[in-house]
């Protein structure tokens, strides 16, 4: 899987979780950029990503992920 592919799949996950077709994420997207991305949605989002890519986030990773780029790093390190 390439980084672009991951990014594209990420978009789908975000659109699904936040129920908003207009969302497009980049490496530098953070919780501040998406209105509903609060601490309550954070885990829901993580779990959705886990399902989509068939991977598992460690709790420590859930606690420390700051932006979409970091999420993609973890995804790439586990899928390839």
């Amino acid at each position, binding site marked *: 899987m390439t980084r672009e592919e991951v990014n594209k799949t990420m978009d789908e996950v975000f659109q699904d*979780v936040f*129920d908003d077709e207009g969302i497009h994420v980049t490496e530098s997207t953070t919780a501040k950029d998406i209105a509903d991305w*609060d*601490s*309550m*949605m*954070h*885990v*829901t989002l*993580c*779990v959705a990503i886990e399902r989509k890519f068939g991977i598992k*986030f*460690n*709790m*420590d*990773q*859930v*606690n420390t992920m700051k932006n979409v780029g970091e999420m993609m790093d973890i995804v790439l390190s586990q899928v390839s």
Partner: protein
Amino acid sequence: MTILSFSFYLLVGISLVLYWLFPRQYRWVVLLLSNGVIAWLLNDRSYVALGLMYGMIIVAFAAGKLFDSLDEKKRLKKFVLIAFLLLEAGILLFSKDFVYYQNLLSISSISSRFVPPLGISYFTLSLIGYGLDCYWNKNLVEKNPFRFLLFGSYYPMLTSGPIVRYREVGNDLVSVHAFSYETVCFGLQRILWGMFKKLVLAERIGIIVNTIYGDPATYTGWFVWIAIFGFLLQLYADFTGSMDIIYGVSELYGIKLPENFDLPFMARNLSEFWRRWHITLGAWLKNYIFYPIIKTGAFQSFSQKTMGAFGKKWGRKIPVWCALFISWTIMGFWHGGTPKFLFVTLWFWFWIVIGEMLEPLFERVVNSLKIRTDCFSWHLFQSLRTFALVSLSAGIFRAESLRGGLSMYKGALISKQNPWILFDYDMWSSFGGLTIGDWFTVLLGLLILCAAAIIRLTTGRSVREWVLKQNLVFRWGLWFFLLFAVLIWGKYGPGYNTADFIYKGF
């Protein structure tokens, strides 16, 4: 000895001189040693308390090492984790909640001889956080027990936190600090600011609040609302005052601790309030309770079911609300576990959930009434609403018991409404022994607090940095004013027992 006593600052002074005189790489050792002395004195010279504190720190350190070496043996590792959590949380719950339940069940008194170490509520959470971090990520394990000992027992944090993560402050505690004149000045200024809030403001507002709470039969109706709004202000000045002193003392060593407050009364809803008030406690609950619970398999399958039953939008929310309920309940137990504290914390849960449920309805109302929401007045309304909801919870927090607090509210609602008391200046001018001068002082203090908040909001920097940019006469005038305000208007000295910080060793 408390962080308000003269002897404390004498010791801090001695410790600082040694700290800055030693070669840079050994400074943390000076800190570790002086820490032992000061922590012992803060614990009223109790070796038992000090020993228990160091014991709990060593247990956490050992747990970290075990997680590291047991990385391959998953089951054993999990077993160690559970044992670690049970031990640390058990001691915390025993020291805080046991007294209450013991009375409830009228078991003979064991805990009367048990002296919990000061700050156990704060450092235990920090230690548990460290243990979980190590369990999840072995790269975070500390190898040097002495560095970890300093982290666990760092004396500024014993009075009322903050709750910290080893990965965030551990390194800063032991890293090489070069002496900086500005940092030390900032530290002293922050201590002074904290003293001002506590001794001049909080103690005075406390007199009003105590008078009303002390005689609920006489003070009914509007008095109750005055008391609970007053108490929230008192709590704010008291708690942030103690935090300012703590950060200030820490800064004297060149060490910055994570902030606990960020203008909480600016918050527009309760969730935001808790991201601005007691920040480190909220963050701890989020990281170590809320997230792990939601991520469990059980919660995930629960989530699948609710989504099936209520659709995607609500189906996702229901498990979150459940996890929040558990978090807030744990927060209640952390505060003391009595019905009163459980009410106080679950109150927030209730309104947050209600708020989310009714959000679509609110939006429709706002839209149909064409209420503007992008203006100051709307933000003000939201902040005031949040303040009122928080006050109602704080009012119970201040009461002797849940029953007492609720009956006070009942008294406020049922008894004769008495708005005229607001204008009974004769009564207020000697209320609870306060004088006109005291009221003037309270008013001035609140104005200064507001001014500081406005400076922070408009400049986006700390007030101390803003002051540093001013001319000498203004700078010195300001610091002298605060110094003498504390010296003269401060409620301290023989004949006046300064109350402990409300959140001291909570």
